[in-house]
Every structure is written in C-alpha cells, then in structure tokens.
C-alpha cells in the first residue's frame, strides 16, 4: 500500500520535472527562494505589492486554464472571485465558519456556476466572441443580483471584522501581511504545479488540440464538450479560492467592485502580457504589470501629482505595446533568449 503510494508519487514528480532543463530548474528554485525570503527583506508596503502581484499571478494562472489551454475566452472571471469571496465572507461573518471551510463551500458553488455557463455555451454552440459576451453577461447578472441581495448587505457592502492581531491565526486567516503573503505564495506554487501536471497529461493535450482546432480535435475522437466543461469547472474552482483570499485580505466586498468587468479584465491582463497558454506567462505578466503600475503610482504620489485613472491608462499602454510588439506575450521571446525555449510551455 505504502509502496504503491510512493511509486505513484515518484511518477508524479517525474512527470512534473520531466523535460525540465537544469537551467530552468535552477532559475525556478532561485525565484522560489527569493520569494520565500521576501518578507524578511522588504517593508510592509512592498510586501503588500508582492501580495497583489501573487494574487494576479494566481488568478491569471487559473484563467489561463480556460483560455490558454482550452482556448475558451472568459471575460467574466470576476464572477468566480465574487462568489468565492461572498460565500466565505458570509459564512465567516454570520456563522463564524472559518475561511478554509469557506473554500470547501466556494469551490462547488463556483464549479456549478462554471458548469451552467459552460453547458449553455457549449451545448448551444456559443463560441468565440459570443462565448466571451456570455461570460460578461453572467458576471453582470451576479453584480446586479448581489447589489440587491440583503443577506450580504446588498450595495452597502459586506465587511469582515478587522482588529489588531498580536499573532497570526492561519486557520481564520486573520493576521499580518506576511501571513497573507505566504498563503498566496503557496497557492501560486500549487496552481503552477497543477497547471504543469495538467498540461503534461491527457487532458492537457486534448485541451491544446481543442484550442488549436476544435473540428480537427473532434475528428481525432475528442469529446470536445466534455473537455471544455472540465476546463471551465477547474478554472472556476481555482478562481473561487482567489475570491476567498480577496475577501479575507481586503476585509470588504462591494458587488459594484468585486463583480465589475474591470476586475475580470485585470485578471486577464497579466497572462496576456506574460504570454497566454504558457505556464510562466501569468506569473511574469503579474510582476511586470502590477510592479510597473505600483512604481508609477508611488512616483506620482512622490511628485505630488494627482492623476486618477493613470493606472488604467498605463494598463492600456502596456496592452497596446504587447499586442503590437510581442503578440506571443513577454515570456516566450524572453524564454528563448534565456535559452529555456523548450520549457516555455
């Protein structure tokens, strides 16, 4: 029994590390070590920026499962963030049920929501742009619905109790930024590993085939409906955890903010800039985008200039630059330059 488990685990590790060059393994380890050490090296402000970066790396990775792997463009991922956040926060505020149980409740709800959207779209052949519009519509339904839902305080917003915490309570996700940092770092590492395993398994190959040419994928025997459903449900489940994290990190939820289309767009900017369909793109994209935006922000503050919307303009410029100059995203050409071309996937 134990032998069997060990053998299975060894196979998993082999699959995970298979095809990884020494060079990229070294770089990954170095990056991970730097991220592990970060809370001891930077101040609270920078740590908060890092938390936001990792949050976007995580959600970008989750979105990438749908778009980057299976080729299904979702512009409404805020719905899964919002559902996860609202569910876990309500359980916490009303029944004093901790966020980890909240995650267990959020995941099935997000999966069902994703399954409904997926079923409607894939059964009735709503594809491409129309599928994207459908995902926006659902996020908007949720926004308007929650705006009128009194159990979660409707448009007045839901607040989590905030206090000074002497020590971190990981079980209840109450504590200082360093704790939140390690939670989102662990989540980002886990989803990275999950995505790599998925890509290196049967489901990943089938997703890529669907992304490349759905008709050819069907002719190759792939039940495209089923595999697209898997993509939506896995992506929704992963994103809902980000929602729980969001709620407990920010301690407030407003339907207008959480379900806003801008939230959905923010999620997808990272992977687009980093490289859709790559494993490292969402991480790199989150660092580049959030890093630069925060730099811009603090520079403006230091200069005493008040420019509301500067961040949005900056995002727009970044997106424009990447679409024109680096249509694959930043990571694939960078990977080739670093001599990691084989691992860009």
């Amino acid at each position, binding site marked *: 029994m134990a032998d069997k488990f060990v053998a299975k685990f060894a196979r998993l590790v082999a*699959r995970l590390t298979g095809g990884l060059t020494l060079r990229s393994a070294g770089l990954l380890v170095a990056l991970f070590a730097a991220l592990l050490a970060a809370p001891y090296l930077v101040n609270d402000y920078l740590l908060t920026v890092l938390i936001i970066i990792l949050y976007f790396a995580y959600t970008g990775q989750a979105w990438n499962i749908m778009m980057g792997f299976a080729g299904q463009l979702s512009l409404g991922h805020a719905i899964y963030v919002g559902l996860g956040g609202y569910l876990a926060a309500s359980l916490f505020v009303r029944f004093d049920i901790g966020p980890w149980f909240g995650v267990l409740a959020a995941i099935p709800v997000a999966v069902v929501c994703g399954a409904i959207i997926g079923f409607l779209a894939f059964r009735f052949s709503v594809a491409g742009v129309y599928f994207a519009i459908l995902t926006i519509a659902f996020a908007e339904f949720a926004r308007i619905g929650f705006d009128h839902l009194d159990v979660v305080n409707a448009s007045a917003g839901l607040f989590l109790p905030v206090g000074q915490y002497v020590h971190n309570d990981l079980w209840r996700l109450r504590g200082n930024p360093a704790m939140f940092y390690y939670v989102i770092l662990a989540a980002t590492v886990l989803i990275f590993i999950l995505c790599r395993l998925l890509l290196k398994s049967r489901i990943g*190959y089938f997703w*890529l*085939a669907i992304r*490349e*040419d759905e*008709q*050819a994928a069907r*002719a190759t*025997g792939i039940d495209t409906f089923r595999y697209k459903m898997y993509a939506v449900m896995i992506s929704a489940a992963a994103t809902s955890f980000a929602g729980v994290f969001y709620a407990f990190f920010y301690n407030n939820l407003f339907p207008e903010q959480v379900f806003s289309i801008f939230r959905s767009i923010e999620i997808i900017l990272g992977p687009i800039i980093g490289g859709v369909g790559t494993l490292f793109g969402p991480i790199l994209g989150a660092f580049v985008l959030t890093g630069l935006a925060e730099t811009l922000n603090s520079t403006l503050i230091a200069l005493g200039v008040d420019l509301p919307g500067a961040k949005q303009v900056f995002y727009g410029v970044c997106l424009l630059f990447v679409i024109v100059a680096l249509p694959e995203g930043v990571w694939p050409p960078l990977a080739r330059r670093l001599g990691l071309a084989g691992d860009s996937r």
Partner: protein
Amino acid sequence: MTFLLTLDNVSKRFRGLVAVDAVSFEVPEGSLFAVIGPNGAGKTTLFNMIAGALAPDAGSIVFAGAPIHGLPPDAVCRRGVGRTFQIVRPFAALSVEDNVIVGALLRRNDIDAARERAQALLRRLELYDKRNQAASTLTLPDRKRLEVARALATEPRLLLLDEVMAGLRPTETDRMVAILRTLNRESGLTILLIEHVMRAVMALASRVVVLDHGTMIASGAPADVVRDPAVVQSYLGAEVL
C-alpha cells in the same frame, strides 16, 4: 467477403440541391477503395456523412456491424474511423510529435506510451526527423502526411482520406501512394479515398465508385471504370467521345 462499411441509399440535400442522392455501396474489409467524381459531385458531402460531420437525410451507414449515421464525429472516430481533411487542419502551434500524441491518447492514458506510438507512426510517415518542429512550419506534403499520422494514431479500422493527394507534386503523390499501400498491406487497414488525382486512384485503389451530381454512375475496378462512357462524359466532357 465481409464488408466493413455499408452505405444504403444515403441521401443529403441542402435546401433545393440534392448533394448526394441515394448512394449505396459496400467497402470490403482490408480493401483500398476510392470514390471519384468531378467537382461538385458530392464526394466531400458523402465523406462528411461517413465521418459524422454531417447527418444524412435518408439512408443508413453501417460500420463494423453497427449504424453510425447521425453520430457526432468524435463518436465515429472512437468507433474506429480515422479521417483527414481536404484542407489540412493540423494543430498548428503544437509540435509534429504532439499532434500525433493527441491522436494516440485516444486509446491510452499514458503519455510515454502515446509518445512511443506517435514516434513509430512518424517514422512510417517519414516525419520523424521533423517531430520537434511546430506543425505550422511544415510544407503542404508534410502536413498531409502529418494528418494521416494523426488519424492513424487513433487506431482506426477504416481510414478516410479526403483528397489527400490534392496539391501534391507527382513525386510526392507517388511517395504517399507507396506509404498508403504499405499500410494497407502490412496492417490490413481498410482505406477509403476520396480523390481527384487519377494517377493516385489508378495506382492504389482496388475498387472505384464514381459520383456525378450526387448519384453513383459507375463502380468497379479502376481500369474498367475509366473506360465507362458515362464516366468519360462526366469527367472529361462529351467532346472527348
């Protein structure tokens, strides 16, 4: 003689146009069978009905003893029918090897086993040296052979080839003919070709069906069929007579 595929009175109309009109024929197991005909004869419509891309309006298609008409294309493939596309559709961004691995994963779960199978097929289709290239970088003849490899990876009993020779130079056509003939001889694979290129049909097929305006106007051995007056008239024009 056992028949792997039986078409019985298969018809398809697109509004007013009858694309395929009550076509019936049987494809013997292990044969190299060709469907030919001029442009617009209904060849591709017929092909798409067998492959599950279109459902016939009437008639039945029986594969290996079970009706397959009206099944979706992925189900038809899982039953054991592999196909290629007239206009090639490789998974462009994937490597040549990964394209074939996708096909091989239909019958197995293990990636390494699928890769082994894919590499064996790529050797047969003379693409092994290009296995790490992206499929989008291949030339047309290579892409056509890649499609055949991907279809074969799904382990079909019947391979449907939609104008797999179209656009190939004569030397490339001969290369493809040689590969297909070897496949048929060595593994007993049944092949149904839809073809325009007479050179390939004459060299390959043991039996030919000729379609014109959706109806079957002749069938038999290739050498006999090309001398059939009705075929000559529809194919080459009446003035040749």
